[in-house]
């Protein structure tokens, strides 16, 4: 089946920003022209009128938790894939903290086969660094790479042992696997349920200081410098981490980093009233941090927006704040929130798409764009479409969002992955 998208503004960061027609055929982009006149041989051609809409390379989320295997009551690879497609995503990286942990080629294979079955989004599994995420024994990176892992991380937990982290960076580099750092000093974070500061003190909740993150960010950049390997810092939440990443980049160290939409919009005051849907790790920080994160995303110190999509059921969230699970949904609100940043003047639309599609692809070593011959992974956005966030109608199995009730403008109305329509809004 062929698809012709007519009259959209084509935004391919760094390469193109123009109005035109895009023909998709055989899973690939077959033509990019001012005005395409379709030849007779394209039977069953679906023509999509896209005047006033924006066509971008398919969005890529470097950091999601799809919970399968093990916690299918929160999300499955199928429901997560539906949420991703509905959010405009054509590819995601799934974190290894499933049950069993993705530290074994059989788990990687299972994830890939479920993803293929769902067929809605490209799933790139991230395998564990250490067996069982216990921080004791290196996983067989070579076997996992062969099984289809794109990178390694102990996400959900940090690698506390610096020697293990050093070896993981060296060993992964040999296999061409990316290493993702969940940067958290567990001793500094111990007993904490939210950001350390006045709000935590007033609420009587244990605080997690900024330094719990930034000391580990600094450590992992130092280890990347030591080993010559590259490291990717996950979910950056503090201004001190931003400063460390900026310095590392200036020194020529191969460090990349992502932040999440919630760190761009919310601060620790969102936790007031003990709102467990504002509980995540790292926690929501101060306004000063939020401003620094916005600035760093704009200037490229932070390369990408990743959601850290972390579904939890009511059982994990409708409890006392201290006992509530960390994490919130992200896939179905990330693009609209990104577009809000554009409207607020923080980023240009081109930079936003760069941070949500082009940069993630570069970090993963994938080719992406709106160019003839490339796989047809594209997202069609209606920048005007206004809607109210309603977790009830999310495609995800879970409902844990702090953005419930927000009125946002702009969202994906069509997602195409490998030439197939995976979402139609």
């Amino acid at each position: 089946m062929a698809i012709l998208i007519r009259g959209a503004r084509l935004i391919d960061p760094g390469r193109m920003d123009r109005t035109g027609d895009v023909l998709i055929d055989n899973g690939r982009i077959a033509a990019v022209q001012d005005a395409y006149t379709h030849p007779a041989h394209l039977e069953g051609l679906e023509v999509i009128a896209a005047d006033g809409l924006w066509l971008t390379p398919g969005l890529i989320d470097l950091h999601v938790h799809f919970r399968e295997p093990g916690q299918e009551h929160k999300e499955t690879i199928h429901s997560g894939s539906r949420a991703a497609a509905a959010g405009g995503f054509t590819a995601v990286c799934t974190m290894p903290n499933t049950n069993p942990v993705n530290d074994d080629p059989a788990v990687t294979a299972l994830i890939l086969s479920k993803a293929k079955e769902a067929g809605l989004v490209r799933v790139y599994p991230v395998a564990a660094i250490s067996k069982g995420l216990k921080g004791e024994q290196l996983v067989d990176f070579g076997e996992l790479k062969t099984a289809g892992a794109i990178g390694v991380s102990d996400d959900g937990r940090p690698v506390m042992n610096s020697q293990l982290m050093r070896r993981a960076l060296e060993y992964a580099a040999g296999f061409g696997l990316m290493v993702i750092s969940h940067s958290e000093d567990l001793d500094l974070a111990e007993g904490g349920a939210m950001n350390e500061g006045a709000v935590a003190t007033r609420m009587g909740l244990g605080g997690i200081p900024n330094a719990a993150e930034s000391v580990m960010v600094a450590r992992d950049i130092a280890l990347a410098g030591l080993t010559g390997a590259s490291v990717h810092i996950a979910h950056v939440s503090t201004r001190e981490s931003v400063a460390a990443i900026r310095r590392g980049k200036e020194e020529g160290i191969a460090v990349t980093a992502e932040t999440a939409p919630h760190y761009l919009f919310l601060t620790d005051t969102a936790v007031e009233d003990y709102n467990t849907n504002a509980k995540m790790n790292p926690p929501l920080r101060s306004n000063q941090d939020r401003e620094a994160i916005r600035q760093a995303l704009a200037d490229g110190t932070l390369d990408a927006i990743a959601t850290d999509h972390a579904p939890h059921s009511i059982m994990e969230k409708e409890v006392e704040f201290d006992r509530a699970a960390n994490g919130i949904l992200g896939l179905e609100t990330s693009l609209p929130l990104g577009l809000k940043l554009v409207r607020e003047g923080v980023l240009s639309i081109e930079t936003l798409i760069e941070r949500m599609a082009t940069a993630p692809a570069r970090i993963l070593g994938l080719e992406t764009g709106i160019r003839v011959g490339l796989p047809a992974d594209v997202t069609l956005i209606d920048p005007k479409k206004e809607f109210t966030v309603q977790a009830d109608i999310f495609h995800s199995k879970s409902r844990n969002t702090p953005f419930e009730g927000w009125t946002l403008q702009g969202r994906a109305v069509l997602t195409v992955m490998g030439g197939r329509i995976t979402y139609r809004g």
Partner: protein
Amino acid sequence: MPLENKDILDMASLSVPEINLILDTAESMREISERPIKKVPALRGKTVVLFFYEPSTRTRLSFDIAAKRLSADSIALTASMSSLEKGETLLDTAKNIEAMRPDVVVLRHAYSGAPHFLASRIKASVINAGDGTHAHPSQALLDMLTIRQHKGRLEGLKVAIVGDITHSRVARSNTVGLTKMGAQIVLAGPPTMMPKGIETLGARVARNVEEALSDADVIMMLRIQKERQKRFTMASEREYSRHFGLNRQRVALAKKDVVIMHPGPINRGIEIAADVADGPYSIILDQVTNGVAVRMALLYLVLGGGRHGDSD
């Protein structure tokens, strides 16, 4: 004048007129406790559930006596009696409590915010009897009543609170409440026990204990909870008592008519020297007596007592 909310969750949600109303009501309740027959029928037919997830004999007993003196039926549930250990969640508990149709639930819980959680899910009034390190409003109110009894006022007093502020819901509630009533709060203790941003509650943090105590009208010593000091917040007890404890030399820095308080139970010889705890400035036992009066007032007021038209 009724109370604004159905619940008593923390001092931040009580207004100055409400605090005055509670303290004035407690004064008249204290009078009941001094009668030969210490019982009035005010809350006859009302059910008060005392739900204590954390052991606290003193506070529970105080609420229990308060309920009985007002002729309410009180039922005590403790964590061991409840289904907590079988993995029942607070949400399940809320539903079960609701099914019993109580009028008031007095909740003590180890986690901050648990009373807020319960209050938004049940129709009955919730009185927070201490949640985590967040709030302990009935303790703050009884402290305020005790201070008012001895000083005749709260406004303009200098109140020093000394000890482990980080882990103290009593310090937080007293800071919020007393600041609201026009007192000046000065906090002191080891820097490892001083939480970030505590000044935003209205308190000043002193550089050392001596500075906090100088010219104080009221000294409030906090219990040092050894079991809470797991994360390197404390050196030895001996060192603590020497640098941060209250002894006679330090009492002398305060005003001549200073009063000394402690929420109990006391570690004699650690945060407070025995001769000070039992000495002439100590009003610790008045705090206990006032505890019952304040809790009677709270039960009475959350059940609509004192409202226009139904108080007589």
